[in-house]
């Protein structure tokens, strides 16, 4: 059997392992094995590629593999679960730049004159570049190195239009004209434009919309790999890249639906740039009713069902372990405890689930809004911990609200709502929350972790 057939058979094997692995990621019981299968598919693809007869020198490959693996290993084992969104963002970026480099290397080696190949190189470099700088900006926003606020300026649409036009011209030059400027200059210009586009694409998007952006960049990193597959005519790149591209797009769609907004609205509206609700509106809503942790304890102690609604604030306060402890104490006290998780709570899809899993909360007590909303009036106490926009009744009641129509967790329908909050500041979307002024709402001001700790010690004492 010649090597080419062997290599291709191995690539089919890899593709099968990726597909079965992804399928097994669909259930918590099999997910870990699925990930293992998927990684063995990758190992197989890499090992068989090393057999390629065109490889002349293995030293550089070995060096790159070793250095990258070491960096990847330490990044993956040291990262805190709360920092997972920025970690995934930066990994996306690395995938993007790798595809860009592969496309560039193939272009430089200059063996292609077919417009189809050149088109594939163009797309690889473009998507890879946008993914790279877009992910860097997303990383910056998520880790709060740069402000999470949407950054808008005058003439933004015009600048973006100009940029796109320049990219199209470069593309035409690269594919059909050639020689107008040298091919190296064309490539460098394309890379520069792709980088700028990536920055301009993410910078106007606010921190609360980051789940959508990460999902989209995830999709892009797959599409870049897919385009690279067309450059080197390799089917495993195309299959794997397309799977990732599809997965990212579906997650993007789920996130948009969970906010009742279109993708275009998320990307271009600069949502949350200006605080929407005026002060007058806030004043009309009445007074907030604070409650002490001691009094809250008495109510919790008498409750038969408690629903915990975590949000990004819980992650910031690192309160997930204390929350789990409180949940266990409540259960020992005979109270039914569930956790309601909104799809866009946190900074990436499924962010809250991972934090609670880290704190040893069993995944079968985590429920979704559509499961819990119909039975909300039977819930004695809802504890909103660091969530804000996802429990905002304006989404149902106020047609003028920017989040009107967004599916929420309807905590205001429960008998009592405790809102754990640092201060009266508005949420990430920058809008007022009338939940705080409802007659059945009590505010537990202070650091979420300290407040929950006080409740825990009340239960123990």
């Amino acid at each position: 059997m010649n090597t080419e057939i062997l290599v291709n058979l191995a690539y089919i094997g890899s593709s099968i392992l990726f597909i079965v692995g992804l399928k097994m990621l669909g259930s918590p019981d099999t997910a870990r094995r699925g990930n293992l299968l998927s990684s063995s598919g990758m190992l197989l693809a890499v090992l068989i590629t090393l057999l390629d007869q065109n490889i002349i020198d293995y030293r550089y490959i070995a060096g790159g593999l070793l250095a990258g693996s070491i960096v990847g290993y330490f990044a993956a084992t040291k990262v805190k679960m709360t920092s997972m969104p920025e970690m995934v963002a930066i990994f996306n970026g690395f995938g993007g730049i790798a595809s860009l480099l592969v496309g560039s290397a193939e272009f430089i080696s200059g063996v292609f004159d077919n417009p189809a190949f050149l088109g594939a190189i163009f797309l690889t470099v473009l998507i890879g570049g946008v993914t790279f700088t877009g992910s860097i900006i997303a990383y910056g926003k998520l880790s709060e190195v740069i402000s999470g606020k949407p950054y808008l300026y005058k003439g933004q649409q015009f600048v973006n239009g100009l940029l796109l036009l320049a990219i199209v011209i470069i593309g035409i030059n690269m594919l059909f004209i050639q020689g107008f400027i040298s091919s190296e200059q064309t490539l460098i210009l394309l890379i520069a434009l792709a980088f700028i586009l990536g920055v301009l694409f993410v910078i106007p998007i606010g921190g609360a919309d980051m789940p959508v952006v990460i999902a989209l960049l995830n999709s892009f990193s797959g599409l870049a790999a897919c385009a690279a597959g067309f450059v080197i005519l390799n089917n495993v790149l195309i299959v794997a890249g397309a799977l990732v591209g599809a997965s990212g797009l579906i997650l993007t769609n789920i996130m948009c639906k969970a906010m009742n907004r279109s993708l275009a609205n998320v990307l271009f509206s600069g949502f949350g740039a200006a605080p929407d609700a005026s002060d007058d509106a806030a004043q009309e809503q009445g007074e907030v009713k604070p409650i002490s942790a001691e009094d809250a304890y008495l109510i919790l102690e008498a409750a038969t069902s408690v629903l915990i609604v975590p949000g990004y604030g819980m992650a910031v306060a690192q309160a997930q372990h204390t929350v789990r402890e409180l949940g266990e104490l409540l259960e020992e006290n005979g109270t039914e405890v569930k956790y309601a998780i909104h799809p866009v709570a946190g900074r990436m899809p499924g962010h809250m689930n991972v934090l609670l899993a880290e704190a040893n909360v069993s995944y079968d007590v985590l429920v979704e809004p559509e499961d819990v909303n119909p039975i909300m009036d039977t819930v004695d106490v809802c504890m909103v911990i660091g969530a804000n926009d996802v429990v905002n009744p304006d989404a149902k009641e106020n047609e003028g609200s920017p989040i009107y129509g967004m599916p929420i967790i309807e905590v205001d329908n429960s008998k009592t709502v405790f809102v754990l909050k640092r201060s009266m500041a508005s949420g990430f979307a920058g809008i007022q929350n009338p939940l705080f002024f409802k007659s059945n709402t009590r505010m537990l001001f202070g650091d979420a972790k300290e407040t929950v700790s006080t409740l825990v010690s009340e239960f123990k004492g």
Partner: protein
Amino acid sequence: MESQIILLVFILVLSIFLGVELITKVPSTLHTPLMSGANAISGITLVGAILSSGSSDLMTILLGTAAVFFASINVVGGYLVTNRMLGMFKKK
């Protein structure tokens, strides 16, 4: 050459449909591991990077080796962190 490209486009289209079918069934609890796991798969570009890195032209080698470096971070880091996360998902 054209027939080969058509075949690859064919594979692409089928893979996208397959991906949509697979991912739609993933519950929201697993969305973060799904993303980081999928992200690791996108590191498949490593295959292309290895081929470039092993070529004879110096510029291609340099670009390819940089690509190998970034793609390995993506692959190794992505799979390990997904494994770490999934290890935390427990049922009582």
